């Protein structure tokens, strides 16, 4: 089954490469989805079936839908792709790519200098995961809950728009308030 691992890894790499080079946001999102599914396959082959499940349901399902919603809301289409094509010149991407490649080469040397270590992954069942999550990592779970709540409140606050067109009842109320305000000022 090693071949499945290498195939999934190659798919993940190629799809990720496509994500960072596409001009059209929707194409990049679709490639990222493929990359996430390949990740799920890798997790499954590593014996982490629950992580694979979460990867598909939450990442490829929920988070990608958020991205697609925003791309649709902003109506990013042909013009954005044109602009991206203008921005993404070899002169622009050469330097950062070389620097990142140097960093990766360093990492490669570091990993390869340690001895070979082949193993067959043991399956970690969702039961063990749940026991660990709710015993040793209970504080972490509660902190994650607080983080998610802060994110929800923050997103609702940041995403709020000032209403330019008021409903007629609201408009009357606002006018009354302004009159009252003027009276008190006078």
């Amino acid at each position, binding site marked *: *089954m*090693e071949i*499945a*691992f290498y195939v999934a*890894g190659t798919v*993940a*790499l190629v799809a990720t490469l496509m*994500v*960072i080079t596409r001009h059209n*946001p929707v194409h*990049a999102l679709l490639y*990222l989805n493929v990359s996430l599914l390949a*990740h799920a396959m890798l*997790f499954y*082959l*590593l*014996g*982490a079936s*629950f*992580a694979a499940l*979460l*990867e598909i349901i*939450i*990442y490829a399902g929920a*988070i990608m839908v*958020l*991205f697609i919603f925003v791309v649709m809301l*902003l109506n*990013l289409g042909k013009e*954005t792709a044109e*602009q*991206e094509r203008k921005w993404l010149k070899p002169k622009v*991407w050469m330097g950062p*790519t070389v620097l*990142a490649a140097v*960093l*990766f080469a360093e*990492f*490669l040397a570091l*990993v390869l200098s340690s001895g070979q270590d082949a*193993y*067959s*992954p*043991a399956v*970690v069942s969702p039961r*063990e*995961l749940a026991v*660990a*999550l709710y015993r040793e*990592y209970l504080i*972490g779970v509660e902190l*994650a809950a607080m*983080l*998610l709540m*802060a*994110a929800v409140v*923050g*997103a609702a606050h*940041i995403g709020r*728009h000032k209403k330019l067109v008021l409903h007629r009842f609201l408009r009357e109320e606002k006018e009354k308030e302004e009159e009252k305000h003027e009276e008190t000022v006078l």
Partner: protein
Amino acid sequence: MKTTVSTEVVVLLAGLLFALGIVGVIIRKNIIFMLLSVEIMLNASGLAFVAAGSRWGQPDGQVMFVFILAMAAAEVSIGLALILQIYHQHKSLDIDNLKEMNG
């Protein structure tokens, strides 16, 4: 169905994906693509965690992956709300247009 993997290959794969994420953040000027690249990096680190957990047969790697997932969800929701606001105020997603913040 028995898979034999070597630790180096998995870690190298995670490192390569992480490097691709870094390149994506640096070379892109569109803020949506930068957010996507951050997602790629989070996923790569999650892969490294899961690989480490599977190496020792312990659930801790997957626990860390669950935390990364929660963090990514929070980060994406805030980031996309910010992107919507930026687009409404500047009518553009070019990060060079945001220099009035004066960092």
